[in-house]
């Protein structure tokens, strides 16, 4: 399932996940691409591995995410539930109006901290 040069279709289907350490006990998960039923397991694995290692304060940066569906929301909710069991928290960075709309209509704005900048999301964690 690739285009002639193998690039554009791969980009549509792919989700890129980058994990980096933030200040203190906090880790940042940068996501880039589209989160749906095909790509969400990769995100779930990345978040799950961090929690398994004892990381309970996460900033998930959605600035380069073009699209998210209910399976993606489910992964974020699952991650939040797990860190909260350990007294932790998950904050999101998102300025994409389409994605914020999804969080808004599903009521998830009430359970996630959603911030315009990574700095603000990080400061609100601690």
């Amino acid at each position: 399932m690739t285009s002639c040069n193998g690039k554009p279709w791969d980009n549509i289907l792919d989700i890129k996940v980058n994990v980096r350490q933030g200040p203190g006990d906090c880790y940042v998960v940068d996501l880039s691409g589209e989160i749906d039923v095909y790509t969400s397991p990769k995100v779930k694995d990345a978040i799950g591995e961090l929690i398994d290692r004892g990381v309970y304060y996460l900033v998930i940066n959605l600035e380069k995410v073009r699209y998210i569906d209910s399976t993606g929301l489910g992964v974020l909710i699952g991650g939040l539930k797990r860190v909260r069991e350990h007294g932790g928290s998950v904050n999101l960075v998102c300025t994409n109006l389409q994605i914020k709309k999804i969080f808004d209509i599903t009521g998830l704005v009430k359970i996630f901290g959603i911030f315009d900048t990574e700095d603000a999301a990080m400061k609100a964690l601690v």
Partner: protein
Amino acid sequence: MNHAVENENVATDRVELRIPSRPEWVALARLAAAAVANRLRLSIDEIEDVKLAVTEACTAVIQHENHGDFIHLTCETTPQALRVRVHDSGRQGAHGENGQTMDLDEARIAGLGVFLIRTLMDEVSYDVHPQLGTDLLMVKRLAAGQAG
């Protein structure tokens, strides 16, 4: 993909797509629906609504235990609306109506998908047939001046 079906006095275009019931093909379904929505001059917001609704419908089929081998997507354009039909030939309803095969968390997420479809589209209806499968019809009405 098929093209152009004439009604009595209203020209209606129809685009059909059949994808395997597997996660890697869902993006193609939403892109196809988005392309049709774009032809109708829906706003970017409305196109995103259609993309998400189609994604949720296809995902519901794939996550259902008894889904068929293929998902049929049909987009019909009329002067008044975009009508999107998602058909699955699997047995019993797949669109989050049969939570008994899922655990509680999965059922909640499936419920979220159905909620999104109902919220983002103007009309939603199901037709569940034990042998023929499930038909989900989703309608996005056009504002005055759209289409054409």
